[in-house]
């Protein structure tokens, strides 16, 4: 059978001379789910953007259903039935779901038809069994809903070949399961899906074939049934990576962060935090587990002064910081890796170097507040090397890095800020297996140096292998505090608490 999509000798060199793709050959059969894996910066997103007409092709050919095509913009790709969900959301925040849905769709009418658009959006959502709120503005949507909206957007445009660039990176395990159900349905309807992920378990679960990219070159295509996770990992990074760490036994001595009886209601008047109290001490990693939307992100936002609590207190090293500003708590010694790296993790158009010093710029300034740029450069070059951030130079705009490398740069910045309390919200989102194990070892190193770490993660494995204690949140309350030092908590047990089936009496954390 003729492949529905094929690329031959595709090469991409970015302005500035970055060779992102070199002589790539690969083909996708109609009706399959084809996974694309590779380390951060291997060139996966670049390859997909070329297939979607978002990036120009340096040399090589693309064939759709045997016919050679050249795309000048994504409009041409859409016309060929190709749709792409990008690694970072491509939605306009101030517009509603329906408006985003209709954006750029060629219509006969010059005027917008609000009611009709909402109706069409609801219809298509119902047709594919996706639940979204067409009238809600995107900025008020959860990441899960945004992701669904992105997929619906391309389905509405009549895509038959769906490119999904790390769609599950931002999803919770439950949402991922749901997405996979939908993807299987789409496959049955005859759609072809190209799926990128760093989570090999998912790749194994959903795909029919796997293509490996390594340093911008193809590392072969395999039938999923024929390879194990270990083999894929070895093909990708050249070694097998395990997540069993031997942690030193450490005894906490002092309290670093204390949260007392926090209440928070969001702008829709939904109670997101209903009396949360806990203490984070030095030399410990306190994990926070919970099904997404049970108050974890609100808790982090309140602690990091992005939201104000309706009631309750936050103490940082004994000082009341409930109403302190973000600058004040950072100066007090708190570092924070936010969940959404593009939204509040970095300044996208600014350079890697600038992004790496922005949170502790004072330490590079002299008494007259003049920044010593030689020191800045040394520092950022050191971080780039230590955290293995793949970038052409420290002066590159950070948005031109691959998603995982942006994450690594942010992690590097926060870990080098010299704070003793670290708040990590999904610190390994979108980074490859090699980098995950590196970041994990860094987290353990920080713990060894006497820092207190609050770790929120949707990845239960990550929580269990790193945390000393795990808090479980359910409906805005802490329902359990599990000791993870003597004996590892099991995923099943964690699951029972997360779903609210089990609760501990009189939790004290």
């Amino acid at each position: 059978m003729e492949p529905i999509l094929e690329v031959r000798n595709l090469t991409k060199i970015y302005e500035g001379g970055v060779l992102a793709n070199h002589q790539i050959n690969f083909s996708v059969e109609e009706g399959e789910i084809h996974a694309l894996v590779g380390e951060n910066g291997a060139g996966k997103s670049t390859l997909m953007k070329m297939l979607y007409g978002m990036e120009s092709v340096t040399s090589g050919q693309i064939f759709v259903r045997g016919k050679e095509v050249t795309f000048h913009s994504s409009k041409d790709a859409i016309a060929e039935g190709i749709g792409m969900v990008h690694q970072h959301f491509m939605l306009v925040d101030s517009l509603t779901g329906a408006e985003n849905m209709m954006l750029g769709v060629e219509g006969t009418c010059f005027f917008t038809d609000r009611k009709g658009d909402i109706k069409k959006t609801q219809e298509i959502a119902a047709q594919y069994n996706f639940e979204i709120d067409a009238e809600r503005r995107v900025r008020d949507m959860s990441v899960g809903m945004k992701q669904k909206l992105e997929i619906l957007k391309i389905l509405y445009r009549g895509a038959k070949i769906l490119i999904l660039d790390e769609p599950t990176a931002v999803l919770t395990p439950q949402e991922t399961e749901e997405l996979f159900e939908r993807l299987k349905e789409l496959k049955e309807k005859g759609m072809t899906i190209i799926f990128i992920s760093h989570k090999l378990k998912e790749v194994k679960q959903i795909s029919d074939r796997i293509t490996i990219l390594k340093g911008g070159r193809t590392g072969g295509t395999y039938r999923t049934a024929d390879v194990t996770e270990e083999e894929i990992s070895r093909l990708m990074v050249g070694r097998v990576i395990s997540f069993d760490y031997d942690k030193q036994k450490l005894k906490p001595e002092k309290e670093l962060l204390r949260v007392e009886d926090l209440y928070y209601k969001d702008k829709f008047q939904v109670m997101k935090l209903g009396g949360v109290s806990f203490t984070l001490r030095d030399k410990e990693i306190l994990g926070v587990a919970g099904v997404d939307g049970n108050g974890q992100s609100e808790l982090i936002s309140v602690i990091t002064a992005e939201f104000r609590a309706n009631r309750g207190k936050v103490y940082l090293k004994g000082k009341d910081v409930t109403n302190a500003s973000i600058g004040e708590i950072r100066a007090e010694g708190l570092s924070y890796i936010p969940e959404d790296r593009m939204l509040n993790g970095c300044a996208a158009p600014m350079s890697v170097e600038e992004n790496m010093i922005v949170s502790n710029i004072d330490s590079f300034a002299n008494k007259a507040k003049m920044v010593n740029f030689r020191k800045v450069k040394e520092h950022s070059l050191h971080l780039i090397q230590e955290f293995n951030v793949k970038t052409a130079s420290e002066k590159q705009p950070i948005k031109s890095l691959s998603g995982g490398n942006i994450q690594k740069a942010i992690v590097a910045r926060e870990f080098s800020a010299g704070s003793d309390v670290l708040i990590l919200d999904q610190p390994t989102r979108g980074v490859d297996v090699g980098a995950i194990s590196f970041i994990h070892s860094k987290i353990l190193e920080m713990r060894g140096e006497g820092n207190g770490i609050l770790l929120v993660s949707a990845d239960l494995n990550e929580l269990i292998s790193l945390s000393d204690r795990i808090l479980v949140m359910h409906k805005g309350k802490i329902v359990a505090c599990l000791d993870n030092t003597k004996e590892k908590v099991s995923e099943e047990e964690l699951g029972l608490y997360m779903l609210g089936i089990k609760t501990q009496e009189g939790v004290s954390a």
Partner: protein
Amino acid sequence: MLQFLMSPNFWASVLASTTPVLLATLAANIMTKAGLFNLGIEGTMLICALGGVLTSAFTGSLLMGALVGMLLGIFVSFVLGYFILMMNAPMNACGVAINLAATGGTVFILVMICGSKNNSSSLVSSFFPSVNIPLLQNIPVLGQILSGQNFVTYLSWIFVALCYYMLYHTKLGLNIRAVGENEEAARSAGINVLAMKFIALALCGVFCAFGGMYLSMGSMHFFTAGMVSGRGFLSLAMDAIAQGNPLIGCASSFLYGFSDTITVYLQLYSQLDLQLISAFPYLFILVVLIIIQFVRSRIEKKKQQSQI
């Protein structure tokens, strides 16, 4: 002393002095919505003000003058667009360049053609007429205020309505807003980003043109050097309040018109110190802004408190 606040004439002049700032603000609004920042609005207005006067003087036709003025506005905006969008030149530097070129260039041409460095009063140029609106003009007070304004003033109101409708109720407006807010997302949706920005620039040019021509062919009947005198810059401030929304932009321009007119009246009817009076419009706007901000934050606080 403040009796003049009751007189219809006062309010009619408020509307008149609002007009040029309103048009400039509208130009700034559409730029903001398309994700651009045009520092050159001031210069563009100045160029069009002169272009309109000269063309109408030489052709003897108001229509030709208006048309050439408008095309000049679009042309200047496109020059800006060419440099910042196609050549990747810095936006603000190009805006400043347009202003400098306009300040010097208009005087140069004025000297060449009229032989005067100051104004074009030696030429007989056409101007936009005042319009009396039937029925409305017979209503007491309201008629005196709203009727009999300059043609361009009415045009500016129509522009505000059209612009608002275009931005929020048409596909073109939706696309422009999407491009301004998240260019990548718009590109990914298959929108031609460059085309949207040039359309926005064209509209900006038209609004600037009428703003400039109102000064030289409406409120005055000749061109004087530097006659825009900061209105273009002021519009950027008005736009900062409006955040691109033409209706709020209209309201804030009106605020400016009010305080500008009141200064003139105070100079005539009060014994206050002149210096103090000329600071009035700015003080007034400052106070109003503080009040708006205060009210806003009070509302926010109320909302928060009601949540507990």
